[in-house]
């Protein structure tokens, strides 16, 4: 778990984003146990208070849940999981659109290129995911 944080966004926000990415990409599976906040702080080299805040926000957002004294887990709620995925896709598309728009290119042209790229890239991506 090696994350590079930027210095201007709140660290806890970056932590949540990191978790969402992991969920969306399936690294964290639904119901999977997650590290304690102390462990997380240690692994990410962040302040335990920040880790605490990130967990608190995630819990409120329903991304993770805690049962009594047991360690926290990733939510099993499909709706939430889907929403996280959607959110990330939306975000990425937004970012893509935002940057591609400045080049002044037509949507069809872009979409063709995207499809083409997707096909050629598939193998390497899949390989990397394993």
């Amino acid at each position: 778990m090696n994350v590079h944080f930027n210095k201007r966004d709140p660290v806890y926000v970056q932590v949540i984003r990191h978790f969402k990415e992991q969920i969306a990409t399936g690294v964290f599976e639904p119901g999977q146990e997650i590290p304690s906040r102390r462990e997380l702080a240690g692994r990410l080299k962040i302040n335990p208070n920040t880790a605490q805040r990130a967990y608190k926000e995630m819990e409120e957002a329903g991304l993770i849940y805690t049962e009594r004294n047991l360690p926290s887990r990733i939510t099993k709620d499909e709706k939430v999981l889907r929403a996280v995925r959607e959110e990330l896709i939306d975000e990425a598309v937004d970012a893509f659109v935002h940057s591609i728009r400045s080049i002044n290119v037509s949507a069809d042209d872009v979409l063709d290129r995207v499809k083409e790229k997707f096909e050629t890239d598939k193998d390497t991506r899949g390989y990397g995911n394993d």
Partner: protein
Amino acid sequence: MIEVKDVKKKFGRKHVLKGVSFTANKGEITCVIGINGVGKTTILNTIMNLTPLNSGQILIDGEKINKHSYEKITFIPDAITMLPSMTIREAMQFMDDFYDSWNQERATELLGFFKLKETEKINNLSKGNRAKINLLLGLALDVDYLLMDEPFSGIDMFSREQIADVFTSHLVEDRGVIITTHEISDIEHLIDKSVLLDNGVVLKEFNTEDMRETEGKSIVDVMREVYQQ
């Protein structure tokens, strides 16, 4: 909570602190930032009553420092405060002799963490290892507050990483930490609160996460803003 209230201090005719106020909470890491010679060390010394203040007041959990406070608050200066002729074991023995709050288990754990042997003489340790032992002697005390003066200065990269790791561990968890530095890059993500000091006064005191969240500024951004006015 450590409350520093309008502390003034001069050495001879030089006013080192011209009315410094800030607070440091338990469970938070407060970082006093400023270039060398602005009185960061002096603040820590005054908190520990290692130098008299000319005016102002310092309270630790609401009370003035007294002999019992030293079981509750400890100070890790920038150089080790043990006799160079001692071995690490003797240094730990000394701490165990005089502090009720000394936690030998934790000291042993730290020794393992730092990969140091207790038979070694302090005199023969490298700079980095000496800094680690210095840290160890403070961290192994079960105290509520930890004051550290420039823990990263003049130490090799790997030692710095090890020391930085300490801050994210249970060793400082739930404690109040005041740390001084002139260089924050190693610990930027670790600190809860920054106190920017210059010329004997506090220029700005802020919560770092809040600053990122509400103004989108990093500590360095704020420093740039404040110091270059």
